[in-house]
């Protein structure tokens, strides 16, 4: 790799370290460490939520899918953007308010226990185990992506690349906690945004403009210009339904809990949605122009079969000078790291708040819990790194169920907990179990209706069972109802 590109890469990594060190000094207890003391501004909350959400999928996989399938791939981005909007519109304010009212809950398992005054601790335990298990694989899968990028960019051995990537993330997350993660995600979000705007515009200019690009794509295959090519109703509904998953992703909705005031939500929503929609369009058009540029119709050498996800990287190499290419490549690393660090922190909070404080030492001091959280980051990151040692391990395939799993387990239960007065602890418990089991069972058979994305039946079943079990169980106590009403009236 060009030394200049390496220099920009290192500059970027040093920047991340610096942010970690700055926020180390501002973190004093577990609430600071896992929720930034609820003092996140709207802009940082918006971009950090977006960057945590979008992994390398945005910069590598989505342009790659567009490169292969053309315009018929836009259903997934549409579904995701709609889901993110609904999440900001309906969940953000209410979750921020309710978690503050419900004994200042700082994690999702903590909120579920406090919301229902669950003395059995079952809600806390089941949700925390689910978070720890799935985020271990999720984080591990992200580390594989980071290591592959380092390996390809610097020519390192896979294991060296894996440890370097893990070390960078561990250091700033370990030191600075939530504030470091949010601020690094904020800058990483800006970097990703700029990269996804600059690359397709520059590539389209190189092709001679919009009309020339579309004509060239049409010459490669006219079907690439049609949004319905090869799309069935079940396929389109499945892709759109990915948006439902947003209601249950702990690493994204914790940003709502951390925002400094719910009055910041409208601003955050506007910034977050503008960032997301423009970034998605950037990724879509990177792949779209790639069809024209890299398939023989344009000036680029054709991309080898199976290498379609390198379309963004190839554009950075052929269209930009090494200084800019370095930053554009760093944007891929930013996308990977900004997702891993948030997942790592949510897992660490499950360990510190939900297991250590919840079961072992209920009266532990703030400083003690903060250090347990830090050690949690280290332990989970090490487990994830060891899991990533074999990138072809079938265990990592579990990740494909993580989005649907989180969406179906937490999505309907959290929404009902926030908005339905009659919701009860057994309703939440059985709703989570039903949502999770439906996702697993639905994914096993193939063909017909089972081609529908498992999140759809999982979400519906989780919600239905939560409602039925709530209605069949004893109504909530007066204390729980009184708190719900205070949240509704937004009393001080």
């Amino acid at each position, binding site marked *: 790799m060009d030394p200049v590109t390496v220099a920009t890469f290192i500059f970027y990594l040093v920047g991340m370290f610096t942010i970690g060190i700055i926020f180390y000094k501002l973190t004093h207890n577990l609430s600071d460490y896992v929720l930034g003391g609820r003092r996140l501004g709207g802009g940082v909350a918006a971009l950090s939520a977006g960057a945590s959400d979008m992994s390398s999928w945005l910069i590598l996989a989505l342009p790659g899918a567009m490169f292969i399938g053309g315009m018929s791939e836009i259903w997934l981005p549409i579904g995701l953007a709609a889901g993110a909007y609904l999440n*900001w519109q309906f969940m953000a304010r209410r979750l921020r308010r309710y978690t503050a009212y419900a004994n200042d809950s700082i994690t999702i398992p903590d909120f579920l226990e406090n919301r229902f005054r669950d003395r059995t601790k079952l809600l806390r335990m089941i949700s925390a185990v689910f978070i720890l298990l799935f985020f271990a694989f999720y984080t591990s899968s992200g580390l594989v992506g980071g290591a592959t990028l380092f390996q390809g960019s610097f020519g390192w051995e896979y294991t060296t690349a894996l440890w370097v990537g893990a070390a960078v993330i561990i250091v700033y997350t370990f030191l600075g906690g939530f504030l470091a993660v949010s601020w690094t995600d904020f800058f990483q979000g800006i970097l990703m945004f700029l990269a996804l705007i600059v690359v397709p515009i520059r590539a389209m200019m190189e092709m001679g403009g919009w009309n020339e690009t*579309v004509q060239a794509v049409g010459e490669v295959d006219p079907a690439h210009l049609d949004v319905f090519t090869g799309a069935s109703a079940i396929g389109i509904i499945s892709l759109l339904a990915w948006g439902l998953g947003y209601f249950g992703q702990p690493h994204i909705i914790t940003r709502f809990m951390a925002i400094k005031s719910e*009055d910041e939500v409208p601003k955050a*929503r506007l910034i977050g949605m503008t960032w997301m929609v423009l970034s998605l369009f950037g990724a879509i058009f990177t792949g779209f122009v790639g069809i024209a540029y890299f398939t023989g119709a344009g000036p680029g050498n054709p991309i080898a079969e199976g290498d379609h996800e390198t379309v963004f990287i190839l554009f950075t190499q052929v269209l930009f000078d090494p200084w800019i290419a370095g930053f554009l490549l760093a944007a891929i690393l930013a996308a990977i790291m900004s997702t891993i660090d948030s997942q790592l922190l949510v897992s660490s909070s499950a360990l510190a708040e939900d297991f250590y404080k919840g079961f072992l030492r209920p009266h532990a001091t703030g400083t003690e819990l903060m250090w347990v959280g830090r050690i949690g980051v280290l332990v989970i990151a090490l487990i994830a790194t060891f899991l990533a040692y074999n990138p072809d391990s079938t265990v990592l395939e579990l990740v494909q169920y993580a989005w649907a799993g989180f969406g179906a387990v937490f999505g309907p239960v959290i929404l009902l907990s926030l908005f339905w007065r009659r919701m009860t602890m057994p309703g939440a418990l059985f709703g989570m179990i039903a949502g999770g089991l439906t996702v697993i069972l639905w994914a096993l058979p193939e063909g017909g209706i089972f081609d529908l994305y498992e999140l759809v039946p999982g979400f519906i079943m989780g919600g239905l069972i939560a409602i039925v079990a709530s209605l069949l169980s004893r109504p909530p106590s007066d204390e729980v109802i009184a708190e719900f009403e205070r949240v509704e009236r937004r009393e001080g």
Partner: protein
Amino acid sequence: MRWNVGIFLAIEQVVNIDVRRVKMYELTFATWMWLLIPMPLLIVLSLITFVVEGKTSKAKGEK
């Protein structure tokens, strides 16, 4: 009849153009419709709710 064809037949009745064949800037009208309406609409909605909810908060004196 495929469901999406049904949607387009309905639209064609209203706007009186063949949305799967008529092209605007080289892409079919149908592709533009799906590409340009849903996602930018979310930015517009965010802008509207930003203005409306900002006014509501001020009216309540909560800021």
